[in-house]
């Protein structure tokens, strides 16, 4: 009965490219990009600096903003701290709310048919469109931004959770019941763990939605330390280097978090035997 299937070594999909080689390609690409940027702006001077500043000028803004020691320096750093605090708060609430709503939708069909469909609709509205509405409810402040972040983050989680619950193989459900799991314990002990890989995909989507919503909201609601405000200050003071520095930071942070979540997701998928990668 319980004869384990013979272990077959997973066949690598592609010949294993050494990690250092991939890294060196990436580094080379980055250098090439910087080289072209430098060439166009600092050497050929195709654009005036107030339209397209050179990498050196952007680096100056980054260094002043992150580790400058002047009385007005270090603003990018406090902006990053402020934005991260805001997005992580919003994201945590969104995930908790999303899991709860997702579970309810997974368990109760009428809810899934109504709310699920509406949420899919709301998801297609760009987050920035909700900001004016949020401002009316919460005022021109952080809570309006948080509202948009939570709204954008919670929908993918809720949809992923309810969808993943439906996709749990019936055999697992039956096995769980047979072994005595009922109601809540069936959900938390059997269904959720089984749905984890798909839920993680939803968490990653939720992150990128929440991050974008945050920056969009911060652009409209200034007055608190945020990356969005730094972007707006750069724009307002004709400091395009600061605008580009903010964009780079937004991309970098978004990318780093996405890579982290992707690594976690990949690991879980491997553990679940859903992916065969070396």
């Amino acid at each position, binding site marked *: 009965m319980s004869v384990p299937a013979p272990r077959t070594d997973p066949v690598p999909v592609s010949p294993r490219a050494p990690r250092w080689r991939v890294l060196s390609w990436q580094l080379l690409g980055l250098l090439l990009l910087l080289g072209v940027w430098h060439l166009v702006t600092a050497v050929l001077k195709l654009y005036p600096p107030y339209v397209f500043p050179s990498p050196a000028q952007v680096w100056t803004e980054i260094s*002043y903003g992150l580790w400058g020691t002047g009385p*007005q320096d270090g603003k990018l750093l406090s902006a990053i701290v402020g934005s991260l605090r805001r997005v992580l708060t919003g994201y945590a609430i969104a995930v908790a709310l999303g899991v709860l709503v997702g579970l309810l939708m997974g368990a109760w069909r009428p809810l899934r048919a109504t709310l699920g469909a509406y949420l899919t609709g709301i998801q297609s509205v760009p987050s920035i469109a909700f900001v004016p509405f949020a401002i009316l409810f919460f005022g*021109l402040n952080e809570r309006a931004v948080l509202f948009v972040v939570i709204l954008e983050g919670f929908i993918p989680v809720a949809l992923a959770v309810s969808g993943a619950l439906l996709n749990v193989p019936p055999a697992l459900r039956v096995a769980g019941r047979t072994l005595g799991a009922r109601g809540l314990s069936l959900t938390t002990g059997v269904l959720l763990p089984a749905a984890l890989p798909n839920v993680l995909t939803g968490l990653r989507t939720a992150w990128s939605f929440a991050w974008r919503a945050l920056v969009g909201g911060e652009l409209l609601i200034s*007055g*608190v*330390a945020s990356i969005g405000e730094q972007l*707006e200050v750069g724009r*307002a*003071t004709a400091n395009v280097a600061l605008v580009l520095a903010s964009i780079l930071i937004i991309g970098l942070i978004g990318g780093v978090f996405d890579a982290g979540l992707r690594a976690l997701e990949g690991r879980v998928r491997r553990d679940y035997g859903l992916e065969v990668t070396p």
Partner: protein
Amino acid sequence: MTRIHIRSLSALALLLGVASAQGTTTVRLGYFPNLTHAPALIGLERGTFQRALGKVKLDARSFVSGTTLTEAFAAGQIDLAYIGPGPAINAATRGMPLQIIAGASEAGAVLMARGDSGIRTHADLAGKRVAVPSLGNTQDISLRHLLKEEGLRPQTDGGTVTITPVAPADIAAAFAGKRVDAALVPEPWGALLQAHGHRLIGSEKTVWRGGRYPTTLVIVNTRFAQANPALVANFLKAHADAVAYLNKNPAAARTLINAQLDKLTGQKIDLRVLQRAMTRTRFTTALDLDALTEYAALNVEAGYARSVPDLRSFVRLGTTR
């Protein structure tokens, strides 16, 4: 209707301008719908700007604040403009090809508090939300200095005062919705808020330097000025004429200003309100260079620039005389 007309004309003029390098066919003028920009409003309403330019078409475009005007200037879409010292200095510092060629108005900015906000003095601004036309603009820099003198700091610098950009014409609505508690605004919007029952907590004199500060300047694109010295000189004559008209016939000027403000913002302002706003604003073609230099220093203090530029290198007055 007129706007579409003007826009299509200017697009046509732009095409012609590209086709024939010699001879400018359009002058693109930027300004704001504020009393502090009254010389522009008068020149446009009386038609004196167009007359001064002769056959060259005048394309006047209004902006909410110096920020958006500077963007258009950077994109090469503005030749001449009425603008505050803050954005002008910032733009020049970043290397935009601009020259300051005349003054237009002084003072004319007041600090207003919402009637039910409980704010009575500058010190009461602690923990409140204060609106300015846009970040980095003239009033924003004044406000940051005023807060510093009061021992307060903006929230972004670790303090308690939140500074929010709101277009001056929209502040009455922002007050009604209680979205902001106070505002440092250019006239006539201060006087208008006062007429709505809101409280004046800082007059044009207490805002900065006893009221001796430039609020609006006239700038020109350097390349445009080099290519069209006669056009610029003629425009400056019309500008000086508008300033003289404002000072000689304030009552008639108010009617003209009101007509322009109504066209641009859709708000008809009571003439008595406009009169009160005018008593707080001085119109002059002169430019106080010392005040401007101090202004550049405040810009650094506010964190918008790292050094005070040599203003003499881009101030070119005297064309008026």
